[in-house]
């Protein structure tokens, strides 16, 4: 319990009982209103309070470190060489250092979401009042499952969120301090802290999203959230275009408000990149989405934006220079991203607009969202005719001429994260053949490292965009806008089929766009598993990527599948901060279907999810520190996460060993007996080398000890079927997942029985599984 002991001396306080002067109040603990559930064992847990649970997980899913650097450079004793068992000047070894860096990343990620939530809540309170109710939507009684689970608080209005934020900031501070030189020395304890960081990150995100859903009236747990337009081709070039980029939506909302209030909504296009785009379309479906983070440069260089407004997170840090190149005024709007610009927050709008329009300032910092709204729109209206969509994407002729200057130094390839054959494509272009350049488009993440490295100073990324211009300009897709939470009523319907395994799994495609082989793989995976009646949940850049491919009928997955939380549903929950709705759905299954107490009852619920809910997260292009903390929030809850190849750079996996039977025992809650349940789920954090591997692994990781035989048979069917299709053989570990003959998929019965016989398989029992001795109802012995 966080000892949140408040003492107030208040000069004057207005209460329902009257106005008090010089009131002194001492309060042992803030109990924000009791509600139906009794308080669980771990409200506001400290950084060690759930350590026992973490150790259970880490004892089974052991960290495998892949150091991304042989050194530590974090203090002036360093750099220290930590290769092969050497210790640093502070005594640290490599395992501890790697886990420390993971903790640092997760602290950054959690701090980013929590800071985001804090700024958002402060802004909303200032503008809409502290009594604005929290309302996640009709049919959603459990409005904040993660917050309730972690803190024991049930937030009713915006002001309640502040108490939770105090706690989160406190925990971030403690966690971060653990990375100081000469603190933690055990990698396992660092990992436990990583899990804690992930948990509070989930709370922070939830706070942010329920606040904005409630106040901005985003779709509220709405399976039929509107389809919105996505792609570079959806922008109406004839109009002034305001581009918003980032994650913290108030400035973008105020742009929309200004347009609406001034009847300009049809006159100006507002298009977005990254999560701000998600959240803006949740606010108004008239806004458009360009695409994920990797579309920043290509869209700006295309010259379409007339004004660029950035807020925070995942914004290219040199956009101010890119904006300048296309002569578009640049507006920074966040304390966290000031870009060295003059703070014009207190200046009159007229002056700012004039300065931007006539180029006296190429960019400004405005920390007041309302003012941003007005300045952006007015500047766009004035600047658009002058700019005439001035672009910096070269003509074909320029590409060919430029390409001839290539020195064949290969630096572009060596700089490219995806090792794309840029030089070869450039050399073909020199001969007039732009097709190879165009081919790079799909796998190019738009990072421009090739350009930065180019010995001939060629704008290589622009070359690629030019070569793929047709495709780029025709990018037009539909995505269902972020629906927010899963309804309690939906949970009631699918809780049982999920827990019993009859809906084979819930798969969340989340995170960034740092794809190793293009985003198409994401869309393909979504389609495949939706087809197989899994429930697909998406968010963030991945949600957009999934929308960027069409089937033969020209439909995106959002058009093809419903937005229901049910078999074959493809649900976009929203932006990155909407991720807790995914965790929340799992938590709510435990509460609503299984009637577990969820309030401040973290261990029990996580144990429930780990053993019963076949959920898997896939962050195929995970890039950021936020993605790291989001993943760890899932781990602590018992949800495995798969990342794409670049995810190996997170430098640590959490891997199970199916060849060690001793790792896969659980208690049977009915009897207290220890029961072997097989490696389900086998891993907690896992990088897949290929899409094919990921797909097989997803199917496998959906299995849970609690699956009924029918459920297990369905899950095995998908696992074996995918394995056959993609690996050309049946898996060699089926015997670990078949518990009784009834688990065997009927259609494969003979084949599998033969295989099982060969392996000397024996039937095992299906327990009421738990890792927590305290949940054993009757002890044997």
């Amino acid at each position, binding site marked *: 319990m966080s000892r949140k002991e408040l003492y107030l001396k208040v000069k004057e306080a207005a209460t329902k009982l009257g106005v008090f002067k010089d009131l002194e109040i001492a309060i042992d603990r803030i109990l924000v209103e009791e509600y139906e559930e009794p308080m669980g064992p771990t409200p506001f847990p400290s950084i060690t309070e759930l350590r026992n649970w973490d150790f259970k997980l880490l004892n089974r899913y052991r960290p495998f470190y892949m150091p991304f650097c042989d050194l530590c450079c974090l203090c002036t004793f360093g750099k220290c060489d930590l290769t092969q068992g050497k210790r640093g000047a502070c005594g640290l070894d490599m395992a501890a250092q790697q886990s420390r860096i993971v903790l640092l990343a997760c602290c950054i990620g959690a701090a980013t979401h929590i800071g985001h939530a804090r700024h958002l809540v402060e802004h909303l309170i200032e503008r809409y009042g502290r009594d604005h109710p929290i309302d996640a939507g009709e049919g959603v009684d459990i409005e904040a499952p993660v917050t309730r689970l972690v803190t024991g608080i049930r937030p009713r209005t915006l002001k309640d969120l502040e108490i939770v934020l105090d706690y989160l900031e406190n925990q971030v501070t403690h966690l971060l301090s653990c990375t100081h030189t000469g603190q933690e020395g055990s990698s396992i304890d660092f990992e436990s802290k990583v899990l804690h960081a992930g948990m509070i990150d989930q709370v922070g995100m939830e706070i942010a999203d329920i606040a904005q859903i409630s106040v901005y009236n985003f779709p509220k747990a709405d399976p039929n959230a509107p389809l919105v337009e996505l792609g570079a081709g959806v922008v109406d070039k004839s109009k002034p275009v305001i581009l918003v980029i980032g994650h913290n939506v108030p400035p973008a909302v105020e742009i929309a408000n200004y347009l609406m209030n001034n009847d300009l909504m049809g006159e100006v296009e507002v298009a977005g990149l990254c999560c701000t785009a998600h959240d803006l379309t949740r606010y108004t479906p008239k806004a458009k989405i360009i695409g994920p983070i990797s579309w920043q440069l290509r869209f700006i260089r295309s010259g379409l934006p007339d004004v660029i407004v950035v807020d925070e997170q995942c914004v290219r840090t040199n956009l101010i220079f890119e904006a300048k190149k296309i002569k578009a005024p640049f507006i920074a709007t966040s304390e966290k991203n000031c870009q060295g610009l003059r703070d014009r927050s207190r200046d009159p709008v007229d002056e700012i607009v004039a300065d931007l329009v006539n180029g006296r300032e190429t960019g400004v910092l405005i920390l007041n969202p309302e003012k941003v709204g007005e300045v952006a729109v007015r500047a766009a209206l004035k600047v658009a005719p002058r700019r005439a969509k001035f672009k910096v994407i070269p003509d074909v002729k320029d590409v060919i001429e430029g390409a001839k200057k290539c020195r064949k130094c290969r630096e572009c390839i060596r700089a490219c994260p995806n090792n794309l054959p840029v030089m070869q494509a450039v050399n073909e272009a020199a001969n007039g053949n732009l097709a190879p350049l165009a081919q790079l488009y799909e796998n190019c993440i738009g990072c421009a490292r090739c350009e930065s490295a180019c010995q001939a100073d060629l704008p290589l990324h622009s070359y690629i965009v030019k070569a793929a211009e047709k495709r780029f300009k025709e990018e037009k897709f539909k995505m269902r806008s972020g629906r927010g939470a899963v309804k309690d009523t939906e949970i009631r319907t699918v809780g049982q089929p999920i827990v019993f395994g009859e809906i084979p799994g819930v798969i969340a495609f989340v995170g960034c766009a740092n794809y190793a082989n293009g985003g198409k793989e994401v869309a393909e995976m979504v389609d495949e598993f939706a087809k197989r009646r899994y429930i697909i949940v998406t968010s963030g850049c991945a949600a957009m990527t999934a929308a960027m491919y069409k089937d033969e009928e020209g439909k995106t997955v959002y058009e093809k599948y419903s937005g229901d939380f049910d078999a074959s549903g493809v649900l976009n929950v929203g932006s990155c901060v909407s991720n807790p709705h995914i965790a929340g759905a799992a938590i709510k299954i435990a509460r609503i279907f299984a009637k577990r107490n969820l309030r401040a009852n973290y261990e029990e619920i996580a144990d429930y999810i780990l053993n019963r809910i076949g959920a898997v997260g896939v962050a195929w292009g995970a890039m950021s520190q936020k993605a790291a903390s989001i993943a760890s929030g899932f781990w602590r809850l018992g949800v495995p996460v798969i990342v794409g190849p670049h995810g190996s750079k997170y430098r640590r996996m959490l891997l199970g060993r199916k060849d060690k039977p001793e790792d896969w025992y659980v208690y049977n809650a009915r009897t207290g007996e220890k029961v072997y349940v097989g490696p389900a789920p086998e891993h907690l954090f896992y990088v897949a*080398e290929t899409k094919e591997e990921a797909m097989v692994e997803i199917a496998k990781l959906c299995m849970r000890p609690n699956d009924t035989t029918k459920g297990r048979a369905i899950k095995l069917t998908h696992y074996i079927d995918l394995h056959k299709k993609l690996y050309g053989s049946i898996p060699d570990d089926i015997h670990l997942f078949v518990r009784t003959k009834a688990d065997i998929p009927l259609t494969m019965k003979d084949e599998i029985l033969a295989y099982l016989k060969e392996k000397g398989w024996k039937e095992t029992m299906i327990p009421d599984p738990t890792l927590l001795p305290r949940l054993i109802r009757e002890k044997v012995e």
Partner: protein
Amino acid sequence: MKRAESWQTAEIPGPKKALTPKTPETIALFIKRAKRPLIVAGSECIKLEVNGERYIDYIIKIAKTGNIPVVATAHTVKSFLEKGIREIFSMSAMEVADRLRDPEWKGFDGKGQYDLVLFAGMKYYFEWLILSGLKHFAPHLKTVSLDKYYQPHASWSFPNLPDKEWRETLLKIAEKLKT
């Protein structure tokens, strides 16, 4: 391009870096001397072409002549099977790496941990990280990268080679293993 530098510019390794064998023969010799060698064949084996042949074909040659067991990672096993290779293990890269670092692991045949592991055909950075993991946490192993590009965290790796030289190197290794 300098030799014995990481292929991807920014993948700067620390103090301990792979040795570059003077000749293909050196690698062949290491393999011959090894008691329990293993080849880990990644998914790029089926994508990369050298002189019209796929990398996987060279791997198969080396495995056959050297009588070295192969584990195919990701879905690579499918291509081996399609080529009629039955003597093939299948396991994900992460799982192989995780087992390789465990001195107690008994190997695919139950006869004990390997002593020399040859890596072939993974994404550059992905292999880089796996080899780093093994460099630091599997002191009982020697590792070799058979790839075209220098992998600094292996025990031995070729410098960044032109296609032709790489092909010749692979062929020579296979050949030397015969004798």
